């Protein structure tokens, strides 16, 4: 049944007005600007611009560096999501089953949510720094030639590690609450029906966590796409070369540092569509979840 509602002339508009106003000025307008700019080409001084149609888009899609960046971003997002989800799930399952110290573990595992990505980035950067990083020394001592300032794959390793580290807490919180949300009677019925703990997990617990997992999948993808900006900006800055450039970092570099507004706007628009596609994906799962 539909939610019971008031029917009053102006008052709903007054309640909604502040939010809508802010959105119009700081969301709709800039988004429109981005689309508009993406069809323009500015001269080097930003004095003249002309309408060039899809030229900016064509340039972007024929730029091998952009395609590399896109592929890297997707792989990066998949890797970060996979590892942070797996580790968090492992920890949440343990934390849900221990009796002694459950509360303390919870606190000790959730606090990292509150760390700003650049703070995590700087710490990670220094841990692996060739100047003082013990981990730098440790890895090199084991015979591997490691330097994340010079070697692309080492740089990727470092930012993935930091990004995973930073994201474990939030995934842990959601998984734990998902596990605690599974009703006792279901758990008990499963214990009667299935003697193996591991099998029980994969056949009962994990499917019941599916809604949480799907939700986290999207949260984590968004995180890997955007929130890792802060990590990358204080560790590798997309380098060495362009080996750790993500799409958002490239938008920032081209638009803000490179002042190529047309291309950067077109990149923003592409990114918007990408995110939109991801969200549509999420909504379909949420719908599924409602009918669970």
């Amino acid at each position, binding site marked *: 049944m539909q939610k019971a509602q008031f029917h009053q002339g102006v008052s709903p508009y007054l309640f909604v007005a502040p*939010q809508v106003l802010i*959105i119009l000025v700081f969301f709709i307008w800039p988004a429109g*600007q981005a689309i508009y700019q993406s069809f323009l080409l500015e001269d080097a001084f930003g004095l003249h611009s002309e309408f060039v149609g899809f030229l900016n888009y064509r340039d972007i899609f024929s730029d091998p560096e952009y395609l590399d960046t896109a592929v890297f971003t997707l792989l990066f997002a998949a890797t970060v999501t996979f590892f942070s989800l797996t580790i968090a799930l492992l920890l949440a399952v343990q934390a849900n089953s221990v009796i002694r110290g459950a509360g303390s573990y919870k606190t000790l595992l959730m606090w990292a949510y509150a760390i700003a990505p650049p703070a995590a980035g700087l710490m990670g950067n220094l841990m692996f720094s060739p100047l003082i990083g013990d981990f730098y020394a440790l890895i090199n001592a084991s015979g591997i030639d490691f330097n994340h300032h010079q070697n692309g794959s080492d740089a990727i390793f470092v930012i993935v590690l930091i990004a995973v580290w930073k994201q474990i807490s939030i995934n842990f919180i959601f998984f734990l609450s998902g596990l605690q949300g599974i009703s006792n009677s279901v758990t008990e019925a499963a214990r009667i029906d299935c003697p193996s703990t591991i099998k029980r997990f994969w056949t009962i617990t994990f499917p019941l966590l599916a809604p949480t997992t799907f939700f986290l999948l999207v949260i984590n993808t968004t995180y890997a796409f955007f929130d890792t900006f802060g990590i990358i900006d204080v560790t590798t800055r997309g380098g060495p070369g362009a080996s750790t450039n993500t799409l958002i970092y490239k938008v*920032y570099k081209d638009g803000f540092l490179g002042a190529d507004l047309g291309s950067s706007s077109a990149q*923003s628009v592409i990114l*918007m569509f990408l995110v939109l596609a991801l969200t549509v994906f999420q909504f379909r799962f949420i719908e599924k979840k409602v009918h669970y």
Partner: protein
Amino acid sequence: MPTLAINTPTGSRSGVQVMKLLRLLMQHGILILGVLFLITPIWVALMSSTHTPETLFQSGLQFLPGDYGRETYAELFTISSGQLSTSAAIMLLNSLALGLGFAIGKVIISMLAAYGLVYFRFPLATPLFWIIFSTLLLPLEVRIIPSYKVVADLGLLNSYTGLIVPLIASATGTFFFRQYFRSIPDELLEAARIDNAGPLRFFIDILLPLSRTMIAAIFIIMFVVGWNQYLWPLLMTTDPDYYTVVVGIRQMFQVMSQGGDLPQFNLAFALTILATLPPVLVVVIFQRMFIKGLVESEK
């Protein structure tokens, strides 16, 4: 299994106990490893911030407290030249302003909007709903450059308004409140209508007190989100007086990566600690509320 238990009762019982013990050990072992993994970096940062830059440069990261902590932190709060252009005190205040301003603004604006959307039937409700919730799909980051231009055109660069208000444009808070309001039973509104309570009275007398926990939870989450903003303040603030701690970290990184003098690693670590401590404390202290608010949003 049961037959085994009957045949050798003592043997199997102790066998089961050994298994239980092993499992317990494994569970705690995994958890402790997880905790160590998360805590080590912050511990190392905290410890290293109490050593002189020379010590750090010569013998690397520090795992135990040193005796240079007071000097390190004092330097962060006093200098306005050298490694940092702004004193940590000003940066912390700016972060506090951003966190609080963002949280307060967000709670008020999104609660009002959610109330309007959930409890009223009006002609423009559906289009307004879509305008508001379209912002959920597109984070500020994807439209960062045009947003910067808009704020610049409005003359809001280097101002708290320019820093805070565009961030509020996302509807996350509205979404939280909408979900929460929808979970409140309809009969409550119906009872209130029979009790002669109009929209404003229902909001003040019933909804506001009922939402106290939710408001607190969203406030905490938003404070942390606001405090941790990075890209937006980075673009918005060219005047060092408006730097937040989190932006300050970047400055620290920049100075260090430029080489030259002996890098002040202790200051870098100390600033990281300063940027991290307030939001972590808030989250840990209000843990229960925070988790409730966070998890509620999923539903």
